[in-house]
């Protein structure tokens, strides 16, 4: 939960801190060379105590400059060259009002600065960082007269801020140099799945249907209708965050790996997939038996048809499918009994239709 709050606070870029007198504000880093807060608003003549917590993977500093002096300070910092590290990349000049030391990842430092009235830039002056990693402290009694954050020239390039704030403006809504054609496959981080997830969007009415296949455990995890995925957070920055489900999840696998070969505990190995008319047909080994699985949307309503092609084996095969409220299973061969389907000996192809009323 704490992490979620942190994440939320990191994406709400334009929340302005409001303060007066002696004020303490904590600034941290968010992904992609950014301070988590870029616009602080305090009363004039505030003695501002800024605590800088570096949560990034690389070292940063935080330098408060005189109004309109950010670029000059950044240039002078760059000119320090090899002397930079010893000076924490902070040039000795009157334009620098206050600064932290170099703050290694995980560490914290603070500074105190008196801001009378005006716009006081703050910036990381590490070589290269100064061009993108900055923000501004406004000391003002009239915050309503400040430009909206989107038009504020004291904040980093609006496009970049917009991207960090997940308001994407792409030539294609897909985020790719082409329109997304369904079926489509994304290997990505999905919630409620192992880390080797494969999201598949299927064509259909009302936004179509989608499912997640877990390439680690080689099984279908869940399915939803009404849309595919939103990758904007996953694509942003370093790739920690999940791709989001767009739509309503109507099915979740609750049984673990479904196949049993003989009486053996299942041992699986993912082998990849082949695209058939853009539909992925997954391939995996179950105790050495190769299984192919192709998942298509059910015709005539919400649901999936899972078609399995099984390599020859002398072992008996069982497929587990626990009865779930609101889900109907219909096997092509055999029948569902005690939450499992025993396949007749020699079965090479088997399909299971999964539907909702």
């Amino acid at each position, binding site marked *: 939960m704490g*992490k979620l709050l942190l994440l939320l606070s990191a994406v709400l870029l334009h929340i302005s801190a409001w303060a007066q007198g002696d004020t303490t504000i904590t600034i941290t880093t968010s*992904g*992609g*060379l950014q301070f988590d807060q870029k616009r602080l608003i305090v009363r004039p003549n505030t003695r501002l105590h800024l605590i800088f917590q570096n*949560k*990034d*993977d*690389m*070292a940063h500093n935080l330098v408060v400059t005189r109004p309109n002096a950010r670029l000059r300070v950044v240039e002078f910092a760059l000119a320090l060259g*090899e002397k*930079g*590290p*010893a000076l924490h990349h902070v040039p000795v000049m009157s334009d620098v009002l206050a600064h932290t030391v170099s703050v*290694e*990842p*995980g560490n914290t430092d603070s500074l105190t600065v008196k801001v009378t009235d005006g716009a006081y830039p703050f910036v990381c002056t590490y*070589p*290269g*960082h100064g061009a993108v990693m900055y923000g501004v402290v406004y000391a003002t009694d009239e915050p309503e007269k400040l430009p909206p954050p989107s038009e504020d020239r004291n904040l980093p390039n609006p496009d970049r801020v917009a991207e960090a704030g997940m308001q994407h403006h*792409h*030539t*294609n809504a*897909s*985020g*790719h*140099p*082409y329109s997304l054609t369904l079926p*489509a*496959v*994304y*290997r*990505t*981080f999905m919630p409620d*799945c*192992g*880390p*080797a997830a494969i999201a598949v969007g299927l064509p259909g009415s009302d936004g179509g249907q989608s499912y997640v296949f877990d*390439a*680690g455990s080689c099984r279908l995890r869940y399915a939803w209708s009404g849309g595919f995925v939103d*990758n904007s957070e996953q*694509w*942003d*920055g*370093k*790739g*920690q965050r999940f791709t989001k489900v767009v739509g309503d999840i109507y099915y979740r696998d609750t049984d673990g790996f479904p196949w049993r070969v003989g009486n053996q505990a299942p041992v699986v190995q*993912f*082998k*990849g*997939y*082949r*695209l058939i008319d853009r539909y*992925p047909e997954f391939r995996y080994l179950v105790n050495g038996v190769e299984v192919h699985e192709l998942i298509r949307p059910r015709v005539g309503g919400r649901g999936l048809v899972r078609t399995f092609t099984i390599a020859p084996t002398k072992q008996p095969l069982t497929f587990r499918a626990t009865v779930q409220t609101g889900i109907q299973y219909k096997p092509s061969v055999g029948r569902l009994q005690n939450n499992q389907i025993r396949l007749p000996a020699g079965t090479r192809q088997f399909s299971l239709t999964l539907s909702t009323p």
Partner: protein
Amino acid sequence: MLLSLLTSLWLWASPAPADTISDYYTIETIPTPPGLTAETGALTFLPDGRLAVCFHRGEVMLYNPQTKVWKLFAEGLHDPLGIMAISNRELLVMQRPELTRLTDTNGDGVADTYETVADQFGMSGNYHEFAFGPVRDSKGNLYISLNTASNGAGVRDELRGRYDSLGRPGRMYACVPYRGWVMQITPDGKVKPYASGFRSPNGLGFDAQGRLLVTDNQGDWLGTSKLYQVEEGKFYGHPTSLVWRPSFPQIDPLTLSPQTLDSMRTVESIAFPHEIMAHSPTQMVVDNSKGKFGPFAGQTFVGEMDFPHLLRILPDVVDGQMQGSCVPFFAKGGSNGTPLRIGNNRLAFAPDGSLWLGQTDHGWLGDRGIQRIRYTGGTPLDILAMTLTPTGFDLTFTQPIDESTARQLANYQVRSYYYEYHRAYGSPQKDVQIVPVSTVQLSSDRRTVSLTLAQLQPKRIYELHLGKLTGNSGQKKLMNHIVCYTLNRLRTQVAGRAAN
């Protein structure tokens, strides 16, 4: 004002060119398709001369340099960061969860099979668990490298692979199998843990001598970024991966003292001093152009994320062990208003001998896109080799040095220092010493300068600052003035010197 007047008078009086690297190499930016977020994860050339590129959002695209047309080959990959062309229709791509073989089996120009070649390693779901490679040795073995996780984020409830809590402590950690390892994949498909002790091994490559080289990034246990020569079974110093060594006891490696860990590790062959050479070294590529890319044929180039330069490494071999130096390449380079950008994550030589650069930021510092450096002719005055002697260093240049400049002792300033091996993030330069150069000799062909230093000590870096050395009666200016030699071992006798 006066100065500029004098300068312009001097320019007028003597039409000598400024002589910069941009007089020998040009750079251009390759247009990428509209709508593409060109965070370049990998690039290589197909046998037919087309460029194959992986991008962060999972696209694999092919670019025909003749027609300048981009085409989509594959999509939906998870942060692909490595590529190798097998044929015009078959690529190996390293993505987060696995090494994948992409094949266009029906010849329509688009991959239709995505075959898992190797996924026998763990994933905790931590963003820093990047996967790099593959590169291939002469026997057909493939090598990949697996980044450790970062305590900038945690691990997921559901993992792939066995969880080991002993690998969880620390800034960068390896709580699932083979994080921090280089893995070998044999031609018959076996996946074997090969070498351990890596933190963020974003560059793998074989040099022209067939040595497997891996770069690693400054951070915890790495006082500065570095390059290792990697051999089977060895441990290279970042401790957390030790938990996945079969013989390693059931302990948290961080409970071992730095002295113990130091005694277990194989040190880097070449250090890249932080701030001076590199912040984040990336991929290596051998200049296989046979001279089409200038005077550095056969040498290894290394990319760098934060500086607008590349690096060249100059290996030396002492007692059979590689050590040596690094020097910038194309520093301050640029032409027609196009500078070399930063974020040079991936490098590939085209069949025509031009060097293509794939750029990314990936949430860190960097630019995005693709640039290409082309050699236009002539010989820049630059350092071609640096070798240790029993008493100092021999520096060999691309062309004869003007004797008057070569013989000035003041043109050679040497600092030496080391970086501490410890748990903390990075290291300052420790025990910095100024090392006087006592004599300088010039070879009869005036290409090699032999320096005698007042003192040489092992396990230190020698940072050599070169002054205004010139060639061709002052017409040629030295391109790079700093070269850093990692001295792991002293050379005891001249007879021990080996060709590289």
